[in-house]
């Protein structure tokens, strides 16, 4: 396994800047998720690291060795593709053996490595089948097996779970997580699913429009987002944003509601964007009220969409609470859980994870 350094990587397609200068250090044995919406540059980053695309400028180092001009086959990286990219003309056994066969490894070594990988992934019964006779989940495992069978410097995974159905995706997510942890492998994992990134990664690199917005552990991303875009992308249901104004007393007034604030003092009258995570809003007997616009019951909890003046936001409430559409209910927000952003730049002014008084974070 190896540490990986991307240093000031850029990528241009014609006149389109696919990647702004990007520097990223992945430590040995670290699992890093590259998270962002489609077209944000995360897959381009992975392809550049793999050597499938050349960066326009910048250097790539694997364990200190500059591999920028080295072709993919000599970088010793293993990749799992979104489409699995299995070899349709080869059996599962030969698919997994392929990287070793290419390297002309001794037959006995290949056989034992394939058997080990197959056992690890529980695909031993399918070894003599062809990819076309496998389900999506089984193909996924074969693609993983092909990556695991040799000892690569790092694993590159490009949305490996996105073609699986929801139940299988959850199951594989947990399995993959455990697998890579037990292997002690360096892995870069591209995904647009924030839940995958949050649950699997040691650190998440959040991308948008060709730029890396933040690179930090999941909880830091969640509780101390670098800016509004990161905050909006991480969390489900997503954070809601309200236009607010700082009152003379230092509180934040937004959409007819006043939120007591606990943050570095802002100038009275200044405009701020207030971010509310649904789980930070809770029903209250007294305090400001809001109108219930929509109730979505998920069984385990319910997401309530509220309106107060021009502002709309969401609340996560316990499943047994009766909330009726059209009624007004009282809401409260713990001042420690307020997110404040600069309305013009989107930069974070205050967040729970940035407040040293939130010692539990």
């Amino acid at each position, binding site marked *: 396994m190896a540490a990986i350094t991307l240093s000031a990587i850029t990528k241009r397609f014609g006149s389109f800047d696919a990647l702004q200068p990007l520097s990223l250090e992945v430590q040995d044995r670290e699992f890093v998720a590259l998270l962002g919406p489609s077209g944000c540059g995360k897959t381009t980053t992975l392809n550049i690291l*793999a*050597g*499938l695309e050349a960066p326009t400028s910048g250097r790539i180092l694997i364990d200190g060795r500059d591999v920028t001009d080295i*072709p*993919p*086959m000599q970088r010793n*990286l*293993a*990749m799992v*593709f*979104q*489409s699995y*990219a*299995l*070899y*349709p*003309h080869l059996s599962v056994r030969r698919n997994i053996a*392929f*990287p070793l066969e*290419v*390297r002309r490894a001794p037959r006995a070594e290949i056989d034992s490595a394939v058997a080990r990988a197959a056992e690890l992934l529980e695909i031993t019964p399918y070894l003599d089948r062809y990819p076309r006779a496998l389900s999506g989940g089984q193909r996924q495992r074969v693609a993983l097996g*092909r990556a695991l069978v040799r000892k690569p410097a790092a694993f*590159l995974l490009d949305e490996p779970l996105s073609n699986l159905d929801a139940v299988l995706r959850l199951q594989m997510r947990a399995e993959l997580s455990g697998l890579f942890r037990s292997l002690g492998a360096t892995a870069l994992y591209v995904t647009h699913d924030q839940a995958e990134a949050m649950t699997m990664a040691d650190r998440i690199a959040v991308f948008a429009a060709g730029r890396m917005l933040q690179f930090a552990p999941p909880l830091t991303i969640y509780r101390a987002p670098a800016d509004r875009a990161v905050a909006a992308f991480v969390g489900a249901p997503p954070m809601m944003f309200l236009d607010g104004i700082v009152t003379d007393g230092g509180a934040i007034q937004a959409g007819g509601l006043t939120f007591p604030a606990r943050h570095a003092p802002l100038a009275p009258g200044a405009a701020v964007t207030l971010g509310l995570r649904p789980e930070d809003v809770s029903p209250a007997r007294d305090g400001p009220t809001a109108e219930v616009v929509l109730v979505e019951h998920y069984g385990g909890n319910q997401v309530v969409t509220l309106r107060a003046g021009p502002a709309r936001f969401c609340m996560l409430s316990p499943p047994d609470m009766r909330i009726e559409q059209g009624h007004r209910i009282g809401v409260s927000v713990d001042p420690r859980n307020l997110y404040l952003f600069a309305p013009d730049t989107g930069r974070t002014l205050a967040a729970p994870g940035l407040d040293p008084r939130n010692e539990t974070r």
Partner: protein
Amino acid sequence: MIRRLAIILALAVALGPFVVLMVNSVRPSDAFLAPGAGFIPGTITLDHYRAVFGGDGETLRFLANSVIIATATTLLALLLGAPAAYALARARLPFRLSIVFALAFLIVRFYPKITVALPYYLIMRDLGWLDTHLAVILAHVSVTVPFVVWLMLGFLEELPPEIEQSAMMDGCNAWGRFVRVVLPLSMPALGAAAVLTAFTSWNEFLLASTVASNDAKTLPVRISSFITDKGILWGNMAAMGTVIVLPVALFAFATQRYLVRGLTVGAVKG
């Protein structure tokens, strides 16, 4: 009804000459020019086949020539055409050179071959290769390689790029990817290219007749020698024609899946 009529009409036009050929191959010689002879001969005879195959056994020699030349042409055309197509499909050449090369192949496909027949004859004469298998094979390869290249190009462009990228990550260089992944996946297209190349070589007359007058003579060239100074031997011609067409027809029937696939390659996803 109209649709059926159209099909019958099209079939009649397509197969009519073949039927006439078969009928003529068993028509007695004296019935060809007899007044009042109908389409269906009064008596049938195998004399023409006997004449064609009997005697000096020359026809068998020409048949062997045709088989050798068609086989060698097919192998060579695939051997050259498939890697060329792969290179054209994948190599990132500057100035859109890939397109220039591909179009060059296309031009070779469409200019009239008579324009090169004489120069080719002169080249072969100077090399001392006249009337050898090699001379005919080279001519046929030059005719068929562009076709193989274009058919394979259409197919290769449909191959999902991730499969080759995956092979790259697994450690294959370009040749390894071609041999281990691309070729096996290209079998349907290669099969179609092989069949169509073999047919082209088997049927080719112009270039073969230009450079192979005796020893390397192929069956289609042999047909023309039934036009003699004493008259045209219609029956022998028809018998020989049938001998040429039959294997093609049978082979086409046996490989029709490949053929249809090959002719529509690029039109549908595999």
